């Protein structure tokens, strides 16, 4: 057994242990801590699977952002009475058997892959040079399957609308109920002043490097969102009211620019979302830059939750 496979076995064992304890541990707070640890471990698994783009996304969203989201919910649900009704033993046994069956079925599928493994990698590499991009994943996201990416941005906006519309009527247009430090101590303020500049540089770097190497608008946008939330959580700045014009403009800038370039494709190239020859890379970089900002704001506001307080004038 090679050293690399020892690493893989140890990593898989650790992931499964942490994943199982995230489910089985008693308190919700501990479960969320486990889930964040699990997300960070999973990003290492993605590195081992040669999917660095996915590893970046998983570390950012699976590890940090989902953790913050769940944690906010835990903190707020402490005031609500959680009835500790536990499912009975027979039902748990039946559920366990069912789940083992599902897992076993998937495992069988893993052991018997289709004989010639289907792959689109040669096609991607063949058609990548005209776009001027060096990162095949960015090529798929912004050239070959650009419609998916555009619609995903729309999904983000729709989800945000959904979250906002769950606010009580009197709070519409108000500020989100993100939990913040009541009295931040100097160390926290130091961190909240130190980390964001570093994070912003890294987020821009992620977006910029995404055309050539692993990275891109998603990863960059998530870093920016996290830095913004850090500043808010530390109490250095207030969460913006959802009615703010600048907020809404930023939210739609990315998708609108993407859509505009896509529509222009009908005129200057042959099809919707086609890029005119020779201009593909600058256009994609422009779209990515705008999307990074929009994604950052959308993810940040999603994590901040629905508004709870009417805007004070």
């Amino acid at each position, binding site marked *: 057994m090679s050293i690399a496979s020892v690493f893989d076995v140890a990593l898989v064992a650790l992931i499964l242990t942490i994943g199982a304890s995230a489910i089985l541990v008693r308190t919700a707070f501990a479960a969320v801590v486990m*889930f964040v640890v699990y997300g960070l471990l999973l990003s290492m698994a993605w590195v081992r*699977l*040669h999917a660095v*783009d996915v590893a970046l*996304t998983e570390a950012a969203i699976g590890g940090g952002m989902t953790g913050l989201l769940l944690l906010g919910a835990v903190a*707020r649900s402490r005031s609500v009475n959680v009835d500790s009704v536990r499912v009975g033993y027979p039902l748990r046994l039946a559920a366990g058997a069912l789940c*083992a069956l599902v897992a076993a079925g998937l495992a069988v599928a893993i052991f018997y892959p289709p004989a010639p493994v289907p792959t689109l*990698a040669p096609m991607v590499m063949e058609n990548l040079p005209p776009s001027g991009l060096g990162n095949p994943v960015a090529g798929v996201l912004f050239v070959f399957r650009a419609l998916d990416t555009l619609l995903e941005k729309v999904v983000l906006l729709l989800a945000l609308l959904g979250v906002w519309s769950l606010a009580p009527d009197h709070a519409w247009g108000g500020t989100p109920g993100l939990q913040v430090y009541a009295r931040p101590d100097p160390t926290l303020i130091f961190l909240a002043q130190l980390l964001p500049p570093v994070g912003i540089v890294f987020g821009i770097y992620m977006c910029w490097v995404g055309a050539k190497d692993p990275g891109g608008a998603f990863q960059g946008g998530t870093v920016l969102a996290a830095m913004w939330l850090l500043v808010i959580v530390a109490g250095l700045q207030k969460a913006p009211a959802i009615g703010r014009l600048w907020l809404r403009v930023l939210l739609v800038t990315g998708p609108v620019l993407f859509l505009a370039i896509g529509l222009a494709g009908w005129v200057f190239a042959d099809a919707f979302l086609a890029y005119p020859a020779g201009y593909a890379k600058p256009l994609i970089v422009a779209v990515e830059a705008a999307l990074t900002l929009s994604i950052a704001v959308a993810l940040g506001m999603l994590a901040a939750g629905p508004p709870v307080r009417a805007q004070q004038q």
Partner: protein
Amino acid sequence: MNAATLFGLCGAALVGIGLYGLITNPEPLRKILAFNLLGSGVFLLFGIIARRAAAAGLGGDPVPQAMVITAIVVAFAATAMAIALVQRLGDETGQASISSDSSETGEEKS
């Protein structure tokens, strides 16, 4: 057994674990967490498909990888939505568990 198969089995097991948590945990928050775990198991299975299809000098097929990136972001959006729903439910009813008939579930073990 190569690395792809090993991580594939890990993904399969995670789907099982997540499903178990989804069924047996009465707290909606924990259900959401379990669903995320289940989802990441499915993503890992996609990663295996990508890894096995390595060709043309790439470590994996970029198409499933791009799909997983999209999926992670959408899963986050769905989680945010689900949590907002649960919270509103809690605000309205003062209850933090999904049980249409609490007297019945209370009998099993309280």
